[in-house]
């Protein structure tokens, strides 16, 4: 890539944002980014789309990855975001491998729950693996998703997170060019 961020910043970030918006207002719905040319060796297309669309100088980013340096350089180059080693300080966290606990991140303050960290968790599959049934605002009845390569005890962790509402982290699950959003309001019922 010879450009910084999206090639066509205005329209590509608008298009990507609308997909992220669609995913977040319909939790469990799989949305697809069509601009495959942005994928990296360590970052999938959907992770890069979120990074280019939402990150900038004002967002602290925490990275958990075996390729931490490469990803850190990529994010610094394309968004200018400060990288932090402190989970509680992070506005966004990019996680490509390894287990993680949601409650070690910033879950917001009683009076400012919007200060919570948004996790971008890159997983292995959204069509094979374990089944989960979701329920909560944005979902008509219930939504079934299938995931592989997620943090251990995923169901318990998601439900512990949503039981803290209005506090809690918000989650983007990314895989290849697909995205599923799990806001803190969402419970896994099965």
């Amino acid at each position, binding site marked *: 890539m010879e450009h910084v961020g999206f090639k066509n910043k205005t329209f590509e970030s608008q298009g990507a944002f*609308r997909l992220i918006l669609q995913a977040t207002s319909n939790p469990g719905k799989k949305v697809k980014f069509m601009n495959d040319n942005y994928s990296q060796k360590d970052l999938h297309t959907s992770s890069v789309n979120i990074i280019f*669309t939402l990150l900038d100088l004002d967002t602290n980013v925490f990275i958990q990855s075996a390729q931490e340096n490469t990803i850190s350089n990529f994010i610094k180059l394309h968004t200018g975001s400060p990288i932090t080693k402190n989970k509680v300080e992070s506005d966004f966290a990019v996680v490509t491998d390894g287990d993680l606990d949601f409650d070690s991140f910033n879950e917001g303050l009683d009076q400012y729950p*919007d200060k919570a960290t948004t996790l971008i968790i890159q997983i292995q599959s959204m069509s094979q693996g374990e089944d989960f049934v979701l329920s909560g605002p*944005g979902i008509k009845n219930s939504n079934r998703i299938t995931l592989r390569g997620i943090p251990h005890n995923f169901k318990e962790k998601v439900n512990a997170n949503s039981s803290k509402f209005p506090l809690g982290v918000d989650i983007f699950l990314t895989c290849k060019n697909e995205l599923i959003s799990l806001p803190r309001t969402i419970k896994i019922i099965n």
Partner: protein
Amino acid sequence: MIDGFNFAYLDEATKRMIRRTILKAICIPGYQCPFGGREMPLAYGWGTGGIQVTASIIGMNDTLKVIDQGADDTTNAISIKNFFKKVCKIKTTEVTENATIIQTRHRIPEKKLSEHQILVYQVPQPEPLRRLEPKEQETRKLHAYEEYALMHVKLYEEISHYGSVIKTYAYPVRTNRRYITDPSPTPKFDNPKMDFMEALQLFGAGRERRIYAIPPYTSVKSLDFEDHPFEIQTWDERCDICGSNNSYLDEIIVNDKGEKKFICSDTNYCEKNIKT
């Protein structure tokens, strides 16, 4: 597009900040998210909050509808539509079901909205508790600790003084059984439409610098008491133009003798009714 302006007027950094705020607002339904509201080329009170939200989500493929008290052809609606035509060159429409984004000032269209639509409200005062507690530090705590007794006492006092809750617009609602939310000054007639609405609802308050949201399929209940359930307005009259007896009616004085008529507030709904 005119030269010297970015698409949709706002610069990309501002849009990014507003987009992050919108996402957080959806994740915490009914919570008022602070954002860095920008000065817009029109005065506060004319929809600067709604315009900033619309400008941050709109793209070339969108079709925009703007209504002012249900009407497509009033000053505020026409001006905002012209603004977006100028800075985005997007398509606009008056037909509710053809719009992908509907920006509104104080009405929800009579036609049921779908999952593919986004409703953007212009909000003058996002804080439902403001008249009861003027300090922001205090109202913030009241929301944080879910301390909503003040609001219930207010409604109770209205019932004990007047026999019923007298608030007919900006009637407070409870979003997702948690935050008390201001539905913007829409008539309470529209409150039931917000409950489990299929469309995403975004609220922008420019002067107060707050954005809040209600995701689709989310519980939105108007506050009431078991023995004084919430009720919407009803009319004995029908619309003088289309004859509708189930839409929100505006009362208009038609001559110097004070004679009056009732007409639909939603002009697009009224027009369709005449045709069929």
